[in-house]
């Protein structure tokens, strides 16, 4: 029986990875579909008529009827859903109720901005969390380790927008080193782009980094207590080498998992930060669309955010599979 365990598992390794990835992608597609149903249902079935919401309470029935006809809202809901979701998959999110322009180009423009902001935020968070969390764990009983712990604990308590306002008041208003807001596309001026990106990305990344560093510290502490770390020392590895060769990769598994959760929080945090720093991202667009009661646009933006978060979760799942061979088999 034990012999069979080796012989059956070893040669199928590549196949196991592929199967696991395929299964994850299948689950991803399923989740996207369910999410699209939820988003569509929420916005269309819940009380309040799309046309009424757009035209206001004073609109005549005739106005409403013609609006509904113009935007295809008079068709049965399943047809509308099918139309919307097939359009979404081909990059067509319908025509805006308020601006009468196609929704998709606006969303994609804003999405690019938000992706840059969120990407920079998560990058800052990870760059802060991994080294500081590891250090705080390794030196848990030393003064510097305790100080790091305390600082990260304080960081967790600060909300995103407050961090943003603090950064603005110090670096933009007080010292005048950075602009207090606005956005320049990288192609139009890379220097300005970086200067304007710095503060919002920091506001997002610092807080997430503080939280992530707590997880990193906990994960590294856990790993340092593991039996195989003692084995590594018993082999003759110095403590630092044991941690580098055996510890960190093991600690990475839970950290990567938490990073995906943190990413979702970061996307939501970005909506607020974009407002604070006047950045034309998805968050700002969403706020405007809600203000305009432009439900078709809201629907497109929300769906985009959902896909984005699910996509990151998928990538994280696949990354975990690559790190940890135990997740590869079907068991």
């Amino acid at each position, binding site marked *: 029986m034990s012999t069979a365990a080796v012989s059956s598992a070893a040669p199928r390794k590549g196949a196991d990875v592929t199967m696991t990835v395929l299964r994850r992608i299948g689950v991803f597609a399923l989740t996207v579909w369910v999410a699209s149903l939820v988003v569509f249902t929420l916005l269309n079935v819940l009380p309040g008529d799309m046309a009424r919401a757009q035209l206001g309470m004073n609109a005549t029935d005739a106005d409403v009827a013609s609006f509904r006809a113009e935007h295809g809202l008079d068709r049965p809901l399943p047809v509308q859903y099918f139309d919307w979701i097939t359009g979404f998959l081909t990059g067509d999110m319908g025509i805006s109720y308020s601006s009468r322009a196609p929704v998709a180009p606006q969303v994609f423009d804003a999405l690019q901005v938000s992706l840059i902001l969120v990407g920079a935020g998560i990058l800052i968070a990870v760059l802060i969390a991994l080294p500081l969390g590891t250090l705080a764990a390794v030196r848990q009983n030393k003064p510097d380790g305790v100080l790091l712990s305390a600082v990260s604990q304080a960081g967790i308590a600060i909300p995103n927008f407050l961090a943003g306002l603090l950064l603005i008041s110090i670096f933009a208003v007080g010292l005048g080193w950075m602009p207090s807001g606005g956005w320049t596309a990288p192609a139009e001026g890379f220097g300005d782009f970086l200067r304007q990106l710095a503060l919002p990305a920091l506001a997002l990344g610092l807080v997430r980094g503080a939280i992530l560093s707590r997880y990193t510290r906990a994960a590294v502490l856990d790993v340092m207590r593991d039996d195989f770390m003692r084995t590594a*020392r018993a082999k003759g590895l110095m403590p630092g080498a044991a941690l580098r060769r055996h510890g960190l990769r093991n600690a990475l598994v839970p950290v990567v998992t938490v990073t995906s959760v943190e990413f979702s929080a970061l996307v939501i945090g970005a909506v607020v930060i974009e407002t604070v720093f006047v950045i034309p991202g998805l968050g700002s667009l969403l706020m405007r669309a809600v203000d305009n009661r432009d439900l078709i646009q809201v629907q497109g933006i929300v769906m985009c955010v959902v896909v984005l978060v699910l996509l990151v979760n998928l990538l994280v799942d696949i990354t975990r599979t690559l790190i940890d061979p135990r997740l590869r088999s079907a068991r």
Partner: protein
Amino acid sequence: MNDADAHSSAGLLEISGLEIGTSSTRLVHGVDLQIGRGERVGLIGESGSGKSLTLLAAMGLLPENLKVSGSVRLDGEGELLGASERRMASVRGSRMSMVFQEPMTALNPLMRVGEQIAEIIRLHQGVKGQPLQTQVLELLDSVKVPDPARAERAYPHELSGGQRQRIVLAMAMANQPDLLLADEPTTALDVTVQKQVLELMGDQVRQAGSSLLFITHDLGVVASICDRVLIMRHGRIVESGPLQTVFSDPQHPYTRGLLAASALETDQQTGRLMTVGAVGQEGRQQGGPGQSGLGQTGPQQEQTGPQQEQAGPASGAAPHEVSSEEPQTFDQAAIFNQTDAEPLLAVREVRRTYGRAGLFGGGRQVQALRGVSFDVRAGQRFGIVGESGCGKSTLLRILTGLDEATSGSVEVSGQEILGKKERQLRWLREAVQIVFQDPMGSLDPRMRIEDVVAEPLRGASREERRSRVEALLEEVGLPRRAADRCPHEFSGGQRQRIAIARALITRPKILMADEAVSALDVSVRAQVLNLLDDLVRDYDLTMLFVSHDLQVVRHACDTVAVMNAGQIVECGPADVLFAQPQHSYTASLLESIPRVAG
């Protein structure tokens, strides 16, 4: 074998005056220990005796919060206590190496096995590339891992426990160390695997000319591999000498008690198991508070008659049955221990298949039970033995209605319990109770003992609950005031008593014990077995005792069924079955038990 005295001139490791403690308590009190070249020394003690700490101190791997003083000298290296980390690192894995207890967690789960072995060679010998690869494969071959080329590429989770322990041994022996330190290396393994690993370890050490310091609580294991032993208790070495002398003529009362308890010796007069306290009354019981000696405080001890007599009436008629050695007998499995009268428990053709259909097909199926049929009569003590994975735990879960069988029938007092809804099984929850293996994990840490024990009582007044709990606690040998405490305040043996009290509060007909004494020290084990013995009689219980430990089952049960690969292969009266095993599997199991007296 080697004569212990011959080695004393060529000392390899010399530990003297070793003291280890936290800031408040001292855990090891002035231990002296010498190991000669090529000598194989066993360090024996129960949990908390300080044996593992002594070994970790020798390796310089004690946890940082412990203070250590004294001297640890390795021939050619000088003093190791207080040596720099760099110097210790160069000694570890090359001159001294170590095999750990838990093969499941001792290896890095994310690194291929071959690389983990290669690492220790590269580290100390600087070998690289093809020669290194060749050396790794040779090592894997030498520890008898099947198909070394494949094993080298495997991750630890793809190997069985026994194979992983071979890998750990291969790592430890990779640089032909002068001294191998082994900390309970076979405790987590099945007996048959344990035997193989012990033989392998003996061979490896002999071939490399290494010395061995072997830590264990199991005297039988020590007897099979060591030539000199040290008995450790409460941080002190209480007795030492050549194995034959110590085991045949123990001087210290604790050694005598330990020997009696681990051999499950019974008192000639009472038929009860000898406990460490009963043999060696030192007046100083340090273990857990009130842990030792509690076995004697159990009620109705006076009535205890000889063991065999009680077992007599129930087991007298049990026939000795053996299943065919042919593997294909699934279609018509025999009904073991069948009775003409109505059995209390009737199990018929129970099968359990695990497995799941994959999202993209390709589900894997495991047959945990492949048609199990037997009867248990009221008042019987029915033992089920087998190695890990044989299906005994699955069977127990099905019998208690905690798991569903794939097919088959289980009747308790003539009532079918399979395929019933939880609501319909309320009577079963009262009639059948279980004591689980892990006394640490099976009690809710946030509940007071009173609530733990009284939880199954429904609709009883507060006073009634309290008085019944207190009465039961006394019966299992715990003070009444224990009711107000929480589980973490008790030792393992005491928690198992609490678990037994919880099981008995519903006044069940059947008590199921799932490896109930496997996690306990031998001296505590004897006490808990004595307690079970009393309670089974006092409460007119029928007992189903599941264990991997054949000796324990032999003592605790009158009828025994041996399971292998999801089937019962042999069943009969305990005495007969152990004396004359008919099935080859039973014979090999019995053959593998390490024995104290050779």
